[in-house]
């Protein structure tokens, strides 16, 4: 019963989740094995979007709670590593696939 209420109240999110699952599967449906590593690396960078959550935590925390600020800053730092490192290393891999002149 609680579950039904929960789904009902968040039905738009549930739609996003279900449709995103299908999109995720479809979008990489027939990727050649050559590109598995760059694709995994690119996907790795995209889940760095978790940094948005870390920023929200920071923006909502009070300026005198130093433990929360410290952990929050750490979270933002780690999220940035994931995003920047992920995209840059993917770009480096793909750069090498350029055709030889």
């Amino acid at each position, binding site marked *: 019963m609680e579950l039904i209420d*929960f789904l009902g109240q968040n039905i738009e999110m549930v739609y*996003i989740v279900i449709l*995103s*699952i299908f*999109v*995720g*599967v479809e979008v*990489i*449906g027939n990727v050649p*094995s*050559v590109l*598995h*590593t*760059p*694709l*995994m*690396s*690119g*996907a*790795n*960078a*995209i*889940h*760095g*979007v*978790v*940094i*948005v*959550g870390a*920023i*929200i*935590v920071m*923006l909502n925390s009070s*300026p005198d709670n130093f433990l929360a*600020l410290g952990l*929050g*800053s*750490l*979270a*933002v*730092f*780690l*999220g940035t*590593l*994931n*995003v*920047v*490192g*992920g995209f*840059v*290393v993917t*770009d*480096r891999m*793909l*750069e*090498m*696939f*350029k*055709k*030889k002149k």
Partner: protein
Amino acid sequence: MTENIVHIIYLIASVTFVIGLKMLSGPKTARNGNLLAAFGMTLAIIATIVFHKGEVSGLVYGLIFGAIGLGTIVGWLTAKRVQMTKMPELVSLFNGMGGACAALIGLLEFEHNIGNATSIAVILTGMVIGSVSFSGSMIAWAKLNGKLRKAIRLPYYNILNTIILVGLVVYAIYITSSGTHSETHLYALFAAALVYGVLFVIPIGGADMPVVISLLNSFTGLAAAFGGFLYGNQVMLTGGILVGSAGTLLTFVMCNAMNRPLHNVIFGAFGGGGEAQAGAGVDGNITEVSPSDLAVQMNYSSKVIIVPGYGLAVAQAQHVVNELEQLLESRGVEVSYAIHPVAGRMPGHMNVLLAESNVEYEKLKEMEDVNPEFTQTDVVLVVGANDVVNPAAKTDPSSPIYGMPILEVENAKSIVVNKRSMNAGYAGIQNALFFNDKTNMLFGDAKKVLTELVSELKNMD
């Protein structure tokens, strides 16, 4: 008004993620796809900070910008400087950072949501998945860079792990349903999840790490999605779920390439001890060949196929292999590369390495296309590959790699295998190919012996 702007920017970012992933699946569009997704991510981050409602102190802004600045510099430099052979472990490391980020969000948001069972459930789930992904990725990282070479198996590790997993779920449910939502329990759950991540990955052999990383990658995606659910934040939700589902599919695709079901990788892993007896009956005489003899043999061949493996990557021999190819082609020898789907430490790893040394994309042939060609091949040169050319995968049902599709190099007229020693491959099993009458062994560091081979070839004019 500002709220609507944020929503629209999040929508744009989500679309760039979808299109970016789509473009990443095609060789021509891949690079732009990655840049597009990076652009969307930048937009989402800026919008989150700029359009935030409510008072925020300067200290908080300073910390945010400081952390982003520092993370950008460290991430950028690490990614730019890493050798391409070390790339798989770097992906694992970055994945772990994302998982840790999700876990920290859970730890921090817990106290703001005490009393709200739904939010607590979402927070705990995200935190547990993020923590498992973090500690698991760290173990995978240590295994890939050789710090942790052996698979460590506790007694009854499968049962033990299952009990811990069930324990985690039950404990999380208990915390959620207890009205008090005590923080002590939160930290205990956090610690237990970290331990589980370690125990989950540590029995799995190094050869299976690509599959594990791909799986943990989709875990981190899920953890991010739970964060999105907590905040009602669509871009976290779409980004996280996209990676979660695409990553899961990719994991299965990789398992298929090795012809091993996922549960086999996780529960019945090979790749480090336990299988030592397999292939023990393989024995016989090995024949060695010198670089100068091989140079003569190759010079008078009409078709040569090179099979690169991880040994090539370790020895950094990709450039000298390319030099060898150019030299042979100039003598009228047809040269191509046979790439096994799991050659190296990650699918596609070899392609990246060879592309780095300017080998043409068209010369890299996938397994299905190249297998029929071996019968017309004069010389197959196997450089630092082992399990992917082991005929036991076809002939020996007792072999742990039985059923894995392999490159059928034994059909070629002559086979030359470059290895550093007679040690067994990553799966820890002996290879009958080395004792084949048509096989000659070329011992030594790949870069060193191939350089000798190239100079011998040059001297033959």
